């Protein structure tokens, strides 16, 4: 009897220890990521939110101002609205172009049989080039006197405009330069196209469904989740537009390419008003979040997921 009791105690302790190990082991395995997330994502996030409620100069005393930064930005700062409007204009053109052009490029790469690997790499390459290198290339392309673009236009007898000096054209120039990096979006859509079973098209072909209808009623719905993903990531990257504008036009001419991200950047690193810049970042976050949620909600009407069962689909029993 004693022996049984004496033997049971370490057994319980062992079980307890192994339960703790079982519980802790997964967290230990993901701890590098958790630490990175805490210090480099969540920490700065909370810090910037705190900053946004302060008058926070780089040098000098910090003062708690509550929602004043937000109030000033929305009611007393015309540059906030101007930069936001420029960003919205940019996003409204960039996002659809990015998705439509990526889609057609992906479609082309999906269908070509010759050198598809080469073209895939060629189209993807610009998206891995660093922003500064990309801007250097495009500043040369857009140069009024020595630019490649105007040189090519001159070959067909057109006197090329000052791309980066004209307030109406500068934003177009930035949109084109931004679209140069659509390789990532294209690759995602290409992967989606390759995952569509070819029998669906064959069944449609045998049934006499014309090519345009196959694209509209098979390809696009089957690509729905990928299109949604690229839609949201394109919106985010449009709102984050900074590098190209900062290096190519510095927000000019006449503030025509003064994006919202540049407005935040200037407040932080030109005027050293960190609290105000942090408030701007949070406004951008809320706008992007609202847009993403809106798109997600709208997507319920056109995005189909293989594993999803909607209420009007029936009871789901097979």
């Amino acid at each position, binding site marked *: 009897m004693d022996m049984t009791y004496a033997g049971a105690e370490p057994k319980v302790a062992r079980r307890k220890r192994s339960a703790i190990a079982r519980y802790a082991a997964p967290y230990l395995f993901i701890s590098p990521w958790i630490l990175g997330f805490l210090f480099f994502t969540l920490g700065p996030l909370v810090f910037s939110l705190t900053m946004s409620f302060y008058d926070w100069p780089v040098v000098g005393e910090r003062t708690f101002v509550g929602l004043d930064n937000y109030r000033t930005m929305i009611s007393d700062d015309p540059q906030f609205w101007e930069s936001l409007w420029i960003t919205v204009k940019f996003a409204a053109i960039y996002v659809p172009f990015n998705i439509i052009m990526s889609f057609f490029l992906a479609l082309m790469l999906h269908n070509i049989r010759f050198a598809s690997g080469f073209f895939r790499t060629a189209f993807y390459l610009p998206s891995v080039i660093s922003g500064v290198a990309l801007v250097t290339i495009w500043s040369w392309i857009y140069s009024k006197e020595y630019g490649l673009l105007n040189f090519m236009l001159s070959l067909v007898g057109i006197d090329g405009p000052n791309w980066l000096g004209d307030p109406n054209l500068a934003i177009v120039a930035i949109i084109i330069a931004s679209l140069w990096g659509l390789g990532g979006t294209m690759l995602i859509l290409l992967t989606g196209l390759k995952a569509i079973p070819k*029998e669906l098209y064959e*069944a449609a*072909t*045998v*049934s*006499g469904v014309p090519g345009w209808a196959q694209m509209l009623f098979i390809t696009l719905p089957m690509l729905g989740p990928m299109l949604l993903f690229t839609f949201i990531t394109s919106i985010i990257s449009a709102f984050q537009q900074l590098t190209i504008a900062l290096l190519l036009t510095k927000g000019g001419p006449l503030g025509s390419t003064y994006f919202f991200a540049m407005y935040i950047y200037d407040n932080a690193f030109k005027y050293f008003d960190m609290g105000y810049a942090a408030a701007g970042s949070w406004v951008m976050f809320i706008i992007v979040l609202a847009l993403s949620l809106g798109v997600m909600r709208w997507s319920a009407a056109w995005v189909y997921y*293989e594993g999803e069962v909607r209420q009007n689909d029936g009871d789901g029993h097979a």
Partner: protein
Amino acid sequence: MAAIRIENLRKGFGSLEVLKGINLDIADGEFVCFLGPSGCGKSTLLRSIAGLEELDSGSIRLGDRDITDLRSAKRDIAMVFQNYALYPHMNVRKNLSFGLALNGMKRDEIDRRVNNAADILRISELLHRKPRQLSGGQRQRVAIGRAIVREPKLFLLDEPLSNLDAGLRVTMRVELAALHERLGVTMIYVTHDQVEAMTLSDRVVVLDKGKVSQFGTPLELFYQPANLFVAGFIGSPRMNFVTANLVRQDRSELTLSGGGLVRDLSLETLSSTVVAKDKPVTIGIRPDKLELVSPEEAHLVGDVRLVERLGTESHVHIALESGSDMTAVVRGTHPVANRERIHLRIPAEHCHLFDADGKAIARALDPETQMLINQEKSKRVA
């Protein structure tokens, strides 16, 4: 009329020739199976008929129309795919009506056809469901329904039951046979499962390495295989083969000796058959026809390697003294055991004979079997 005539059809992929001159005549309303091992070209042949593969040469006629160069949609055919190919984002009704609606058919007519197909296949209550909410059998019915609504002259079915479990396959097989009976439309069915081919078909096309090895009724293939390939492919367990030498031919009577035989075997061929004396012949015998006998009556001697007891019958795997392997089917309660020495007799009347090129040497069948084959043929003609 929806008879199909295929003439000298050739199709290759790069340097690989998959179909090497196919000639077939399929009658109106016939149920024909393309049967063969993987890579024999059966699916390519079906897809060529469907217009999904471009031919290298040859022609295909459906009824009185040459459809060789017609687009798939214009061929008046419908196809059922192995993995169903249902549009996952559309419900069953939409899956059935999709092609019709885009071909400009009126709403009333589409509804009539969809409801009719749903009635035939008993899927009316599933019309609002998405494919992922259906079982394998239900999905297969919808795929067949999509073919029915087109009211085609020709149904093409590419291994439609291969994704189903064994029990459901049997049920769907029966349903397919009933559907063919009901619709009376020509159907071509690709399978590598000989049971499906034998049970469903009016006639079976056995394909081997891109060529038609034999085209005949199921019983013809079983009892009168045209060559070694068909003999070995049709029937389970597969036919046993023993090589031997022709030692004497006295009109229609042949005497075989040597090779795998321990005793001479005499058998009758059709009187017109002439067999080359200097070349070996192959004797084919179905496992259920082999007889376990005493040593003095035996044509073959070997050791039992394995006995598979299946209940009503047992499969006995034997290693012959000559080095080749053989399978015999005996009654389930037979006391035969592993490593036992075994003596087998080949009943001459059940033998198949093949020449050195693997072609069958014609032999008369017993009257009862011959009558059955004739009945099967006449049923097809009727």
